[in-house]
């Protein structure tokens, strides 16, 4: 049972966001926060096991307080290891709250479910007035270099983004590729990797989001390459847009996500995005 509880507060004196570690139990760990130029705090989420092991039960809580700016990333791809028979699926539960005019950028490396992995992930994000969220998740088909494609047993991912208790985005998927093929055009088709990038800022009106959808759709069109990678953009029911992509290769996704990140950060916050320093 691992747990991590983090708080981010904006100092009134320095206008710099500071990290508060309320609780951390292995294998989850953070070491320190790195200051970002826009007053934010970058934190790397470590899993000292090197990945998620069968039966792991992990809980993460993140509280971004009013006006604070937090950026969370991982140190590398999250490996989801094979589960032994009879062991309950590994599970990660994440609760995130972003208070008034806070901003959370959650930009992890991909999830890689190994052959035989059984993993459930539930993420709930609650946004207050004026709160911002830039949040992505990319899922690989497995250890592709070993020729391992969709050899996992269970991958269940649930995301719920709410504003003042009202859901604006629900993504709930349960993949059991050994029982139900994912290659139908009604599911993944010929693609292997998938990603979702949610971009929210509470309070902006529908016309604004429609305009941003149009702007981002043009970038999606430029980044799309027939039979290789497909990008799409849509407004959510309120307060945001979602960017989705499917790809035959993982390498092209990271570059596209960063291009969207930069575009929407410029539009929403009037500055460039500040990617964490690492090799993608």
């Amino acid at each position: 049972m691992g747990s991590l509880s983090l708080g981010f507060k904006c100092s009134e004196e320095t206008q710099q966001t500071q990290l508060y570690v309320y609780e951390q139990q292995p294998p989850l760990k953070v070491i320190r926060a790195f200051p970002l130029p826009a007053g934010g705090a970058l934190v790397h989420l470590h899993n000292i096991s090197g990945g998620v092991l069968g039966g792991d039960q992990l809980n993460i809580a993140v509280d971004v307080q009013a006006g604070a700016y937090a950026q969370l990333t991982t140190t590398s791809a999250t490996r989801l290891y094979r589960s032994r028979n009879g062991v309950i699926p590994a599970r990660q539960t994440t609760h995130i709250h972003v208070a008034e005019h806070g901003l959370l950028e959650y930009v992890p490396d991909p999830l890689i479910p190994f052959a035989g992995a059984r993993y459930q992930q539930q993420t709930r994000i609650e946004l207050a007035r004026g709160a911002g969220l830039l949040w992505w998740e990319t899922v690989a088909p497995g250890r592709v270099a070993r020729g391992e494609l969709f050899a996992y047993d269970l991958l269940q991912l649930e995301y719920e983004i709410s504003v003042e208790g009202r859901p604006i985005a629900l993504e709930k998927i349960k993949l059991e590729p050994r029982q139900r093929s994912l290659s139908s055009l009604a599911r993944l088709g010929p693609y292997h990797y998938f990603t979702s990038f949610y971009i929210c800022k509470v309070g902006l009106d529908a016309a604004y989001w429609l305009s941003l959808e149009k702007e981002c759709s043009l970038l999606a069109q430029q980044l799309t390459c027939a039979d290789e990678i497909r990008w799409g953009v849509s407004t959510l029911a309120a307060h945001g847009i979602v960017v989705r992509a499917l790809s035959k290769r993982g390498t092209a996704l990271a570059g596209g996500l960063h291009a969207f990140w930069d575009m929407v950060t410029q539009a929403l916050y009037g500055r460039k995005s500040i990617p964490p320093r690492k090799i993608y």
Partner: protein
Amino acid sequence: MEIATLPFLRLLQLADSALPIGSAAHSYGLESMTVEEHLTVAQLEDFLRIYLAENGVLESTFCRLGYRLAELTDSTQYMEQWVQLNTRLSAYKTARESRTASATLGRRLLQLVASLEDAAQLYQALASAKREHTDNHYSIAFGLVGAILRVDEDVVVLAYLQQSLTGLISACQRLLPLGQNQASGMLWHLKSSLIEIAEQSERASEHPDELMLFTPLLDIGSMSHPLLDTRLFIS
């Protein structure tokens, strides 16, 4: 299962593709799939079977939940739950065009039936959604209307699935070289899938928070639809 004749005839009319609510103008991303992903007639029946296993379960479950709202006698509670249910389905529908299509058809269905039947719950549904800036989704509206007509819940869900599938196949007839006999055969062969989906939705309705949906390629197709050079459909 016994069906009273007048409600049955009314249900047949509401589930007919000729109902003037605009359902023939929507492909829900299928148009992009035929253009960008080369969906072919040969793939279509399997594609629709999987589509029903994903989207069909979701929508028919919400259809059931909409049906059950008609039991509520407290109008305040009814309107709150109507808004909650529709807000939740909107959150599942992350592709704007498909979400808007569903909301437009749902609103028009409610308005049409409200002009034919004296039922306060139809007006309350429309008014509460407008007040709370939420949608009136087609599947939920169909369920509510079926309950108001006093048709059995399973029959309403099956009629909903049947007419949704008919609409998709009809769209494919305009997008693909799919003949009338072939389309009829497809609709005929998929009836057993409709029954399975309706049964699954009965179980899913007991735990609606656990509803799953994985149609990413179709979602992206719906998202890229506005950028197609030529379009036959609104969505």
